[in-house]
Structures are given as structure tokens and as C-alpha cells.
């Protein structure tokens, strides 16, 4: 993120989808889509409810396109995109967005990078002009000073969101432990301090030329506008940007653990936490939907299985969360437990396993399945209230499935999830080797779950603490 308040990974935690039958037929976001000769895909969806528009561009590049030694690059680049371009002096982008009552931001995930403007509807043309200019002419004004300034900001983002955050390093510990060295998902989106320091001006330029061409971009315009007028503006500002080289998508081996791992990490915290993570599948796999439904059956509501057993019945936990977290190519199922005082992580792990074993054996009840799906209609309608939310739905489908209307396919898939599907994914994935991570207070390694069998996390310690700059 260019601005704080959402994590880099927020986009990965897309709300799990669940459904209700009667509504499924009305599931529509009206849109039209077309492609410019230079390869830019454009999606338009008109909604005149509020006199505002969202312009949102997804570039199909994320941290998985980086190479080891240059991690954090895609995200650093996201920041560079806000420093002005050939015809847009620094600062004007903000002035034409937040300066007129709108907003802007960008975000980076393992899979893609996005940029958006939310503006009063009379500022659509300038937003398109701004986006076209940085797509076509960013390098005209890029220099090492600009790069260094944003490098410092990103290091501060890392300090704020990871290093100075209790439990803030868990995601990168898991990335490194879950995937083999060199795997495209094995490093964190934010990157390492050392790699951020190492990025050269030439690295940045080469990255831009390859990944920021129109043929690697998809743009959505959603809100109060005239489509014919918008098409003319798109043509005017984007039409002559040259097509780039075809982009090679990285080959991503499926996540697989040969054997389970037990890790312990000492953090500046007073309350320990237990994390369990199993390798699962990415968003395109048919098992993604039942895995998401399983998350809702295991945690969230008071009567969800883990919540009820650990927080309400035995009361050994203060909080429990369980969810499928899926990216374009890979996914994981994760359980997080916060103990109540006087209860150990070893005890919590055994209790979680007991619930999961029972669930694998019996599968969900019809009512559990129904409850898990009942929130979908409302969630979907809420999503329709926001131009930006709709744009992201359409773009997610267009970029990853080549179908802007994919959300309704996903909705149907979730609706169709059966008790047998959930039971099958529970036994398939939760029966496999997993990573158990205990985060414990400094000097309290003995608080880890099965401490004697746990390996101390050392691989990432060297780069922490924000001491380098």
C-alpha cells in the first residue's frame, strides 16, 4: 500500500464466498469490456447512484515475478508510480484526486499490483490522463533520488507493518517455511531490507518496461459516467501507448510439505499465540470454495466448531480464527489461537486437533452448511454499493480468469458446495503434514507447543529490527 491502514496482504484475504439459492439468479454487475489494439483490456460499468467514479488498473505482476535477491521490488515499484511521470509533475496526482474530494492508492500482492482513483464524476478525464501518463511515460522523469526517497518510505512501511507490530513477522516466517527456497511465493511481498537497498535504477527501469505495458494491464471504470465519452477518452490517452513484450508467467509448483515442521519464534509480546498452516490450493482450483466454506464452519460465529469448543465450552482460548487464504497459484488453510492465561499452546494444539479430527470424520451438518452460505447475499449486495468494490470484483475475474463476470461463477460454485465436498477437503488437506508455529515472549521458548520438538526460527532474524538503512 502506498498509504497505511491496510496491509500489503489485504487483497489476499478476500472474504470467503457463501451463498443462498433464491438470490443466485439476480447476481449481476452490468458491464461491457473491450480491448485496445495495444492489448489494454478495458471494463466499464455504469452506476449513477452517486456522482463519483472509480478508475482502477490492475497490472498482472506481483512479488512472485521477482527474483531472489531483489524481493520487495513489485511493491517498491508501486510507490515509484506515485512520484510523477513524463507530463505529470510530482504532487499533481494527489491534487487531482484527494485535492478534489476523492482519493487514490495502490496495493501489491503476490500476484498483481493495482492503482486506483476515486473521484467526483467530473474529474474522470483527468484521472484517465494521469493513469495513461504513468503507464506510458513513467521513466521520462524517474531518477535515483526519487527511487531512494520511496525506498526509505517502503522501509518505514516494513518497520511499521511488520517489525514494530506484535506477531508482525508471522506471514514471512510462513512463506519461507512453507515453500522451497526460490519458490515464487517463498518471500514476503514487502521484501527484505537488504534487497530493498540493493535495487538499482536500471532494475526499476527494466521491470517497468516488461510489466507495465498496456498488454499486461486491465482497467475498470465504474460509477457515474457516460460510456461513449469515456471510451473516447480512453482512446485519446491510452490508444497510442506501445504494446510491450509478451509477459512470461512464472511456473509455480504446488505447495507441498514432505514432512511437518514445528517452529518457535520469540517476539516482543506478552501473550503467546499458536499458528497452524496446511498447504492447500489456489483460487482456480475447485477445492478453493469448499475450503473457504470450511473456514466459516470452523470459526467466526459463536457456534462455529473451533470457536464453540475452545472459546465457549472449554474456555482455554481467548480467540480463534480459521480460514482458507488463497492466491492465484497456491493457497494455505490457517488456524490462529490466542490462549487464555494458565493454558498452554500444547494444550491448545491438542484441542484444535480434536475438533478437526471429529470434523474430518463426520463432516458438516446440513445446518452448518446453510449457516456458512447464508451471509453471501448480503455480502454481495454490500459490495455493489461501492464503485471501487465492484471494480475490484470485475478486475479479479478479468485478470485471473479472463472473465470479468467470474464472481457470479464463483458464487454459483460456493452455492453448490455440498457437505460431502467439505468433508472431502477437510480430510484431504487437514490430514496432511503442516507447519506449527508458536510465537512466544522473548526468553520463553518453553511456552511453545511441544517445545522440545520445535525448531527456533533463525533464518529471518538477521534482517529484522529495522536497524539497517
Amino acid at each position, binding site marked *: 500500500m502506498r*498509504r*497505511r491502514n491496510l496491509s500489503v496482504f489485504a487483497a489476499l484475504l478476500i472474504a470467503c464466498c457463501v451463498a443462498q439459492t433464491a438470490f443466485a439468479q439476480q447476481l449481476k454487475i452490468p458491464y461491457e469490456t473491450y480491448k485496445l*489494439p495495444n492489448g489494454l483490456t478495458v471494463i466499464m460499468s455504469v452506476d449513477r447512484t*452517486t*456522482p463519483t467514479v472509480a478508475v482502477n488498473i490492475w497490472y498482472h505482476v506481483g512479488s512472485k515475478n521477482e527474483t531472489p535477491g531483489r524481493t520487495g521490488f513489485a511493491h517498491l515499484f508501486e510507490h515509484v508510480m506515485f512520484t510523477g511521470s513524463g507530463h505529470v509533475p510530482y*504532487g499533481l496526482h*494527489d*491534487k487531482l484526486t*484527494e*485535492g478534489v474530494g*476523492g482519493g487514490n492508492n495502490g496495493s501489491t500482492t503476490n500476484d498483481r499490483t493495482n492503482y486506483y482513483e*476515486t473521484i*467526483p*464524476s*467530473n*474529474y474522470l*478525464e483527468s484521472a484517465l490522463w494521469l493513469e495513461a501518463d504513468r503507464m506510458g511515460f513513467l521513466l521520462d522523469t524517474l531518477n535515483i533520488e526519487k527511487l*531512494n*526517497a*520511496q525506498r*526509505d*518510505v517502503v*522501509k*518505514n512501511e516494513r518497520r*511499521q507493518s511488520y517489525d*514494530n*507490530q*506484535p506477531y508482525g513477522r508471522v506471514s514471512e516466517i510462513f512463506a519461507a517455511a512453507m515453500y522451497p527456497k526460490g519458490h515464487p511465493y517463498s518471500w514476503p511481498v514487502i521484501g527484505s531490507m537488504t534487497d530493498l537497498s540493493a535495487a538499482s535504477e536500471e532494475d526499476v527501469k527494466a521491470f517497468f518496461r516488461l510489466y507495465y505495458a498496456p498488454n499486461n494491464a486491465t482497467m475498470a471504470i465504474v460509477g457515474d459516467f*457516460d460510456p*461513449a*465519452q469515456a*471510451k*473516447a477518452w480512453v*482512446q*485519446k*490517452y491510452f490508444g*497510442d501507448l506501445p504494446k510491450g513484450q509478451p509477459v512470461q508467467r512464472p511456473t509455480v509448483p504446488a505447495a507441498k510439505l514432505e514432512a511437518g515442521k514445528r517452529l518457535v519464534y520469540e517476539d516482543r*509480546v*506478552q*501473550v503467546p499465540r499458536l499458528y497452524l498452516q496446511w498447504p492447500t490450493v489456489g483460487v482456480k482450483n475447485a477445492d478453493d470454495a469448499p475450503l473457504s466454506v470450511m473456514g466459516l464452519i470452523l470459526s467466526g*460465529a*459463536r457456534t462455529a466448531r473451533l470457536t464453540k469448543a475452545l*472459546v*465457549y465450552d472449554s474456555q482455554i482460548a*481467548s480467540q480463534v480464527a480459521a480460514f482458507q487464504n488463497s492466491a492465484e497459484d497456491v493457497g494455505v488453510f490457517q488456524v490462529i489461537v*490466542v490462549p*487464555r*492465561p494458565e493454558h498452554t499452546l500444547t494444550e491448545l494444539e491438542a484441542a484444535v486437533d480434536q475438533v478437526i479430527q471429529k470434523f474430518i470424520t463426520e463432516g458438516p451438518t446440513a*445446518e452448518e452448511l446453510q*449457516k*456458512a452460505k447464508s*451471509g453471501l447475499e*448480503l455480502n454481495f*449486495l*454490500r459490495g455493489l454499493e*461501492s464503485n471501487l468494490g465492484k471494480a475490484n470484483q470485475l478486475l479479479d475475474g478479468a485478470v485471473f480468469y479472463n472473465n470479468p463476470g467470474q464472481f457470479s461463477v464463483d458464487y454459483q460454485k460456493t452455492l453448490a458446495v455440498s457437505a460431502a465436498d467439505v468433508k472431502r477437503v477437510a480430510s484431504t488437506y487437514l490430514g496432511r503434514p503442516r507447519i506449527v508455529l508458536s510465537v512466544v515472549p522473548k526468553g520463553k521458548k518453553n511456552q511453545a507447543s511441544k517445545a522440545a520438538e520445535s525448531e527456533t526460527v533463525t533464518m529471518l532474524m538477521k534482517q*529484522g529490527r*529495522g*536497524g539497517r*538503512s
Partner: protein
Amino acid sequence: MRQRKLLAFCAALTIVLANVASLAQQTLDRTKVPSPGPTPVLHVPAWTKTQLANGATLIVSERHVLPLVSFNITFVGGANQFEPVGRRGVAAMTASMLTEGTKTRTGDQISDALQLLGTTVGAGVGAEDGSIAFLSTAKNFDATLAILSDMMLNSTFPAEALERLRARTLVNLTQAKDQPVVVGAQVFAKVLYGAAHPYGQRATENSIKAVTRDDVVAFQQAYFQPGRAIITVVGDTTPQKAKASVEKALASWSKGGDKPSFDYPKLPELRPAKIYLVDKPGAAQSVVNIGLPGPPRNTPDYFALQVLNTILGGQFQSRLNANIREQKGYSYGVNSGFNYGKGPGAFRAGGSIFTAKTDAALIEFMKELKGIVGEKPITDEEIKTAKESLIQGLPQRFSSVSAISNAITSLVVQGLPDDYYQTYAQKVSAVTKEDLLRVAKRYIDLEHLAIVIVGDRALVEAALKATEIAPITMLDIEGNPVTASQ
């Protein structure tokens, strides 16, 4: 008419444009910033306001775009007005306990019923107001409202549920101590207002441990009263339908309660500017909060202060962030704001700063604060941008049923006129440069700033001292003075 014709022309043009793109593009001057179209007309949603027999105010605003309805009961007055001495936290605990069961439903049954309706009922009590609310599909509105009503009026507050909630709350308080940002905010409040003022108080281990079931029952009975309630229904409904639903679901909610007074004790005497340092060994960043008590929401200076803060620290390109993040690279983001309420809410500027740059950033913060009170005069361009941003951002406040509900309810809670949004642009426009300088000098009192920093003492103390900005006092994470031996 002109607009229409132009659009039709463009539509026709698009078809041929693809073929002549290269020709057309040769003449495109990309240095020319596209001019905005005509400013869209502001449509403030209409609403009806009626008084129910039990004294509650009912507000209904129709919006039929989607089959959604937002329901909200807001109570005027909050923890600061209703929590007994030594029981800070009972308000939030009571709100949480509303999910634990009623005379006819167990906690599990409430949860299951709401899951099947696809929604949740949220209750919370803040410092000066509280609410119980949900968002539902239109078809599930009455069923969800019936459960809300049961939770609010018939909760049984089982003793064992209170013990469970207490234990979980204590874990949360322990976890909060590890969050430098939370510690910073708590110590800042305590330094500004002192332990005797409600603004300086919060729930502590001791107060949470002291709360009894009787306290919870008493709070529920005293607090959730129609005499201080504003019921706001927004969405796919009508005033008639909404009123009938509300009167049916809340039929047993009888008259009682009234709006509390907001008389706060006198503020502690302002003290000369000082740095209050809270040691957080190993912290990668220093959390900085700079400020002092400010005006209430009903200050006549409100609009001038909004424009002022937009220039100083309300936005990305505001002076503070443009300097400390974008030019200096000391932070991922800094900002400022006035925390308006019924009482003297704080003016605060701050952010998380790279440990090694704590002193350098503080120098820049002080430079910008001195700048805004006169050393770096506010330009016409800054004023123009700030005003445009505030005025043109207004439609965003009506972009969803929940947003509309907040926009209308806040007028009633804060005692603002019904035509507030219609006259908003005019009031922002009327702010002058002289107004800005006057309110800056009045509310950003450099002589009496409290500078609260949570960071690694070993790495920042000497450097902060060397800035000679203000003397340093060490505090612990509760905001109490640390003795010299520590």
C-alpha cells in the same frame, strides 16, 4: 443540451477512432491537464423525522437502489456519562453481554438465528455515544429487528458468560500493551487530561476485575432508554413501513431516560511544552503524538479548523506528510487532526517514525507547527485546494445506506441543523485566510504542547535532548512517572 450533444458526437467518434488513432495522437498535447466537467449537483438524501410514543426519535431515509436496509439505534451519551467511578469498561462489557442470551433464546440460539439471516447485530458503547445496529437484506429486516429488540430488552446476563468475557477482555488488555500505537494513544490521553478527567480514563485490569453482574444489569437498565435514542432506518423501505416495523418490534420498550448533560470537569492547568518518553526497548519505530486539548464539535471555529487541518495534516499532500514522509523519508505516514466531541477533544499530530530519525522528525514536526501558526504563511493555493477537497468530498458521505445513516444520525447527535449538508459548501467557502491564522494561533498552542514518544530510550533519548525542543520526562506504559533508578 450541450452536454448531451457532445456525448453523442463522442460515441460516433469512438467507432472510427481506432483506425485513425496514430493520426489523432500526433496532435495530443499530454502536458495539458484535462479540465473538469461541470461540478455535479449535490443530492443530499431526504429523510423524515418523527417522535415515537416512548420518546425515541425515528429517522427514515429511502434508498431503493438495492434491497438493503441499515438499522441503527444511537444513544446520546456514552461511557463518560454513564459508567460509575472505578468501573471503566462496564459499558463495553454490557454491550458485549447482549449476545449472551435472553429470556427466550440462549447465546447459541441468537448466533444461529442471525447466521441463518446472513447478518450480525453489533452493539457498542463509546466515550460519548453508543449504538446497536445491523445491516440486512430488505426481506430479512423484520426478523433481524425482532432479534435486536430481544437482545436489547430481554438479555439475562448469565454470570458465567460475564466471567468468560472478563477473562477475554483481560487478555485483550495485555495484548494492547504490546502495541506501541495503542500505548502511545493511551499515554497521550492521560498526559493531556489527567486521571481525574473522563478523557484521561480508560478500562484497566483493576476496573475490569471490579465489574460485577449487578453493575452490568444496572448499566443496561440505565443506558438503553428511548428518551436518548435516535433510531435511523435507511434503505429499501418507506417511512410508513419502517415505523410500523419499529413500533411492532419495540412495543415493550417503554418511556424512560433522557439526554445526559455533558458537563466535564475542568481541565488540568496547561503545562509548558514537554517531551514524555515511554521506553520500548528494541522498537523499530518511535510512535509520536504531539498535541493538547482542543475545542468541542460545536465550536464556531469548526469550519476554519477543518480547512486548517486539511492544509496541515489531513491529507497525503498536507504539509506534515509531504515533508516528513515524502521529502525526508522518516515515516510511512504522518498526519494531524482534531478529535471533536462534546468536550475538549484533542488536537494531535503524529505518526510512527524510524527510530534513528526520531529527533530529526520531531524537529520537522515543530517546524511545520510553527509554520502553520504564522512562520510559513498559508497560501491562497493551499486554501483553494483544501476547500475544494472538503466540498467535493461531500457526496462520498452518501455513497451507501450505512454512510447515509451515519451522515444523518451524526447531525442529531451533535445537535447540528437539518440543512447542514445543504449549507456546508457555503460555510467552508466563507473561511478566510485571517480565520485560519486566528484559529491556528488559538488552538495550536506551541508553548503548551505535550510530546509523547513511545520508542527505544537507549537509541532516542540523547538525540531528543540535543534538539532542545523541550525537557524530557520518562513515563511507564501506563503513563505514570518512572523513578530515577529505573
